[in-house]
């Protein structure tokens, strides 16, 4: 996906066509991130809609050198956190990650889908933390700032996931070469 910086300028100046173009170009990565975390189509649709509406309203406050996709994703993650809070899932007790050593693991490692398999086994808050850390490559302090949780909260989730991965025979085979 190629992003044209002049498009950001046009959006800031209130060009509706440029905003539509922005939606066409940037909605797939934003929607994918939201859907992978929420794993619910209706909720993801609502969050995507809220994200772009907020973006339309707040875009005038943006600086021209702002990375549009990163900003949109940031808005989307904030909306996701609000949605999780609305669903009262934020205070949920953590569910222990259990990846059963079946053939599906080997297959998912093969087609590089192990991360998605892990996401399907954890709670929505844990999914958000893992997505932010591994895919968006946020630092722990950034996750803490965004989620309003402590620094150790995301560290714990990440380290528990790593511990579980280490126990997988598939990983042992891969790491031994």
């Amino acid at each position, binding site marked *: *996906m190629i992003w044209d910086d002049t498009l950001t300028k046009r959006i800031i100046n209130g060009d*509706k066509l440029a905003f*539509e173009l922005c*939606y*066409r170009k940037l*909605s*797939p*990565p934003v*929607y*994918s991130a939201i*859907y*992978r975390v929420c794993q619910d*189509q209706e909720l*993801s*649709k609502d969050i*995507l*809609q809220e994200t*772009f*509406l907020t973006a*339309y*309203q707040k875009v005038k406050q943006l600086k021209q050198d702002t990375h549009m996709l990163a900003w949109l994703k940031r808005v989307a993650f904030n909306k996701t956190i609000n949605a999780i809070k609305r669903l009262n899932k934020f205070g949920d007790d953590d569910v222990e990650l259990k990846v059963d050593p079946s053939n599906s693991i080997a297959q998912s*490692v093969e087609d*590089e*889908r*192990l*991360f*998605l398999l*892990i996401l399907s086994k954890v709670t929505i808050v844990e999914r958000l933390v893992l*997505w932010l850390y*591994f*895919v968006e*490559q946020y630092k722990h302090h950034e996750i803490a700032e965004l989620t309003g949780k402590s620094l150790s909260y995301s560290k714990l989730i*990440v*380290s528990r*996931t*790593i511990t579980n*991965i*280490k126990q997988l025979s598939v*990983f042992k085979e*891969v*790491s031994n070469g």
Partner: protein
Amino acid sequence: MDNKEQPNLTDLQMADEKAAEDFLFKQAKVELNIESQLLPPTDVWQDIEMQISVLEKEPQPKYSLSKKRSITWGISMAASFILMSVGWLMWSNFHLQGQLQQVILANQYLELQLERETTPTFNQTLLVSKISELENKLYYSNNDKEMLALLMARKKLIQQIIELQKEENHEYSI
């Protein structure tokens, strides 16, 4: 062999963890590829477009949120300033009334002392005329502060008359 050259259990565990973390980073990176991206349902843009047109039809607020906040802050500051001023005025008025009462009482007490003397001397008469001047001013005064000052001056003059009386009494006794 030196112990430093041989990796200990913690080093091995850390290397193991790093490898697992890198492994997950590699697996997660796939999610950023265009092929892995999901297309949002087509009706989302239509809904966004509709809501944007609704938003644009809504009248824009006269003042921005920050301006509204500063106006509210200004009003509350002015209100608290007025409250404080009224409080201070009430307190100072109460204090002044108390002082006035005290000075009036002192004047009355001194007047009683004066009445005992029947034949005034020349100096005393001068002072009495000054007192009557002050009383005249007191009669026309509406200001509490001015009244207080006049009463204080009156008190001093009466005290001077009493002092003069005492001195004369001493002369007789000598």
